[in-house]
């Protein structure tokens, strides 16, 4: 279906992630089926075998993520993929992998929560991805694709960043992106191979034995370890924070969204621009590290912000934190399911430009909205 050529193919987000993982040199995939990401495992179950690489349908998500930890500790690239409620099962391992500095790559194609929820697309795992569900001071690198092409590009980047910084890296997609098809091209994996020879567990023949573990009985060493992890993340934030801006230069108000909602806010911006309203868009590509500085600079220029999310206000808090109360931050949301339509966003933003309130929108009832005053 897809290969390394630059020819565009019509492909599902899930398949795009899977093929990009192959191109990136992923040697092992461990996973357990769950809608809406099952196609990733389905695709790799055949392809990995053809390529002589490893595919294991694990006994559980817990098993899968621990298998990935084992595989990447030997220096090879490996990944798992899952969805929301099952990614919850992997949180302990992510805390361990962060402490062990293991380049785990994990794909979360979000569905609805909390609990088992259902298979509708949602963006409710922002907090879990960015702030972590495991214990201790750690951070994942979190990349949020907004198109199928970016499912390819950010999967490439995830494998590179994971090894470059020896840090678990998550691709945070959603059910809409996983299930939809769109033209995308793959091309070659664009990043250099990272030298892992200084730490990978490859057998101690001819060298001293190595250990990778997270237990820390020596207090001083543990303190230093946490400082080192923290410092590493500051370097990541300095070097790897990425975002997109559209028409922010002359904008009075800027819409902020992540992932596949980006498409809808850009379309809403175009509608509002056509009506003579000065509206821009901002979209973090890396959710962690988060583009605080770039948002602060928009606030310094006095631009009000409207955060649009398919959750009850998760990235909203980071945006508010970034702007330090300097401008109004409003919020337009629906918890899950049918993505906020362009018309709903346009309506909401027009109201906000008048009143600066926030709104939660029920499906199919654009006009009947409940207002909840919320100023940053």
């Amino acid at each position, binding site marked *: 279906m897809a290969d390394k050529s630059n020819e*565009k193919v*019509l492909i599902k987000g899930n398949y795009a992630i899977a093929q990009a993982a192959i191109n990136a040199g992923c040697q092992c995939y461990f996973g357990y089926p769950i809608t809406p990401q099952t196609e990733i495992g389905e695709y790799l179950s055949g392809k990995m075998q053809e390529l002589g690489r490893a595919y294991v349908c694990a006994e559980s998500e817990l098993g899968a993520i621990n298998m990935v930890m084992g595989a990447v500790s030997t220096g090879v690239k490996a990944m798992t993929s899952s969805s929301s409620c099952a990614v919850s099962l992997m949180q302990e391992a992510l805390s361990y992998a962060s402490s062990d500095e293991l380049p785990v790559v994990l794909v979360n194609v979000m569905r609805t929560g909390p609990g088992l929820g259902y*298979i509708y697309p949602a963006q409710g795992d922002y907090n879990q991805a960015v702030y972590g569900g495991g214990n201790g001071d750690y951070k994942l690198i979190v990349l949020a694709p907004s198109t199928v092409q970016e499912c390819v590009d950010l999967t490439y980047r995830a494998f590179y960043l994971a090894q470059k910084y020896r840090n678990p890296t998550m691709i945070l997609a959603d059910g*809409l992106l996983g299930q939809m*098809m*769109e033209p995308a091209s793959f091309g070659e994996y664009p990043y250099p191979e990272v030298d892992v020879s200084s730490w990978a567990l490859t057998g101690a023949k001819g060298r001293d034995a190595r250990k990778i573990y997270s237990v820390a009985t020596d207090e001083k060493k543990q303190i230093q370890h946490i400082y080192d992890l923290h410092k590493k993340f500051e370097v990541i934030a300095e070097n790897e924070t990425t975002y997109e801006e559209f028409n922010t230069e002359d904008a009075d108000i800027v819409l902020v969204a992540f992932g596949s909602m980006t*498409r809808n806010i850009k*379309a809403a911006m175009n509608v509002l621009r056509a009506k003579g309203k000065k509206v821009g868009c901002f979209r973090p590509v890396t959710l962690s590290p988060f583009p605080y500085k770039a948002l602060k600079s928009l606030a310094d220029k006095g631009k009000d912000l409207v955060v649009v999310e398919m959750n009850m206000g998760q990235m909203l808090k980071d945006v508010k934190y970034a702007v330090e109360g300097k401008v109004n931050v409003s919020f337009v949301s629906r918890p899950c399911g*049918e993505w906020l*339509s362009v018309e709903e966003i346009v309506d909401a933003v027009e109201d906000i430009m008048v009143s600066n309130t926030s709104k939660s929108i029920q499906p199919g009832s654009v006009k009947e909205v409940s207002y909840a005053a919320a100023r940053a």
Partner: protein
Amino acid sequence: METNFILAGFGGQGILLAGTVLANAFMLEGKNVTWYPCYGAEMRGGTVNCEVVVSDTEVSSVHKQDTDYALVLNQQSFDRFVQRVKKGGTIIANSTLVAESKPRNDINYVFAPMGDIANSLGTSKVTNVVSLGVLSSVCNIVSKEYLAKGVEKVLGEKKKDLLPLNEKALANGFDALLTKV
């Protein structure tokens, strides 16, 4: 300029495949396009649908409340999606399985016996491709030539032997409104 299509029918009628062919046709024509299925606990015999959006610029949203064109292959899909056609939009129905009724007077109706046309080619399995032929005959932005290329792309090398049958299905669908079967 953006146009969207909902394709709907029974599970097993090849609705998702028809949408895939349509989306491939648009891609091969160099347009921006998205395809989004209903997904989840679907089953054979249940209803299934997918949405295709095509645009000269970036696609605005993948999943919309209403549609410019609805292509429906069974009665349940007709009843459901006739409500979601925009004012002035068009519903194109398989009259082999759909009663020719017009519950709204602000949209256009096209009825063609897609199932009968497919059967006359020897198999009801190509009803979906026949329906695309009908669609291209009533919708200017769907090119018959690129649909043929889309079919070829979707069939691939493996199922190349099915290409002549599908090309015939497309052509007969395209001519359906001009000739009676």
